[in-house]
């Protein structure tokens, strides 16, 4: 098993955390993991992204240019990374936010109304958890419970009161994906 994914969006949308949570959960399940963030000027107001690779065996390059899964939370990310989806692979995007959806015919496209779902929970910041839930449901690479448990270990204790809300968002994302596939 090998998954080469990229999470992308605006700085502040929590795309780096999404990749990190996935990497952490996969590590807990005994996988090899590698997480590589974009860092630098593009993080301030521009787009941010992280490559997350999960594998049963040792991972070679952390730098890759085509992906099994692209997760796009804003328009520039769709434009930048849709061409980099491997043929037959998939893109998941926030269909509330993104006006021009992906168009390629040789890939699977999954629109998830993530921002709308997050607004229902009265906190736009959990958009990343909605989409991560949808991703987890679709790919089945990690157990959803491992991701939720990972939150307790990754987040500092002062943020633990927010975990139930994050869990709710995550499950909402899983439901949205279940309706699509």
């Amino acid at each position: 098993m090998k998954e080469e994914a990229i999470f992308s969006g605006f700085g502040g949308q929590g795309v780096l955390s999404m990749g990190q949570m996935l990497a952490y959960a996969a590590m807990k399940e005994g996988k090899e993991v590698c997480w590589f963030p974009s860092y630098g000027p593009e993080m301030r107001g521009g787009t941010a992204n992280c490559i997350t690779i999960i594998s049963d065996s040792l991972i070679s390059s952390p730098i890759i240019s085509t992906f099994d899964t692209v997760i796009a939370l804003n328009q520039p990310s769709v434009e930048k990374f849709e061409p980099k989806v491997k043929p037959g692979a998939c893109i998941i995007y926030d269909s509330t936010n993104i006006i021009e959806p992906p168009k390629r015919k040789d890939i699977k496209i999954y629109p998830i109304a993530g921002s709308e779902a997050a607004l229902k929970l009265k906190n736009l910041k959990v958009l990343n958890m909605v989409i991560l839930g949808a991703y987890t449901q679709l790919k089945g690479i990690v157990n959803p419970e491992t991701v939720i448990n990972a939150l307790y270990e990754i987040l500092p204790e002062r943020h633990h009161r927010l975990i139930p809300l994050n869990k709710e968002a995550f499950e909402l994302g899983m439901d949205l994906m279940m309706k699509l596939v």
Partner: protein
Amino acid sequence: MGEIRLMKGNEALAEAMIRAGCDAYFGYPITPQSEVIEYLSREAPKKSKMVVLQAESELGAINMIYGAAGCGKRVMTTSSSPGISLMQEGLSYIASAQLPCLVANINRGGPGLGTIQPSQSDYMQAVKGGGHGDYHLIVLAPYSVQEMVDFVKIGFELAEKYRNPVMILADGAIGQMMEKVELFDFIERNQEAPEWATVGRRPGKDRVFITSLFIQPEKMEEVNKILQAKYREVEKKEVRYQQLNIEDAEYLLTGYGLGARICMKAMEIGREKGYKIGLIRPITLYPFPYNVYNELAPKIKGILDVEMNAGQMLEDVKLAVDGKTTVKFYGRMGGMIPTPEEIIESFENHFIYGGKNV
């Protein structure tokens, strides 16, 4: 088995420092390695008696290292390219005074103030001296977060064994990326100062004196001979490298650090296309594994050296090969990272299509 964590390269390096019983860290923040001093400031007081000090500048930091190393303490500093340039004078003094210390350079794109993106453009500075005078640093090149941990331990051991500064030469990507790491347990060290340390005159012994000033040329030459003898021993005993798929290889990719990781992927792609590609990764950049290349060269149709610079290790690869096979180069500069696909394209252009499309 040690503790397993998911860590950034810079944080793993800092945690390894604490666990290796490092007595003091002196440094000055610079992207892409500021997490080192951030992590140490937060974690070291909880776990050790380590001194963690933000110096007024890189010049301050390296001279604090000089002083503390002279007292027989286990010390380390980290920086990135422009900061490491500022430390060169101090490193030359430390090498001349034969003191152990560990320095990490989380290389970013240059020249000048440059960019904060990863680069390997400080190879020459690291392995060929960097400062003035005939000296060498022992240079280790990690290619994973795990090696950022392991090389701190090995680095201190080498520094103390040879009384010589050791450099960990990584890059911004290795510093910023997260991987699974296994941490070694906390090391209990003998705290007794070595004989050469300036910790006050011992009863019945001569005064201990550390200097790099030997004004009489006869004496200065003697010191140089001692250093050179030490370097020959290091070259004989401390070469480290990794080989992959050498057995049936017709071609070789070579690179160090992140470059080698990307080459591994390029090798996988190339092998799927039917090219018999192997890989050599130097782990010590000084001492460089010249013999490994030299012995393989006659059996190989060609070597593609891949670096994130304009071709610096290339000179050592060519020296090693000594004309016994063709050596070509592919590199990106200024903070750009080559992709595995670019490497295979360059490989095909040079070796399969006979250089016609280069």
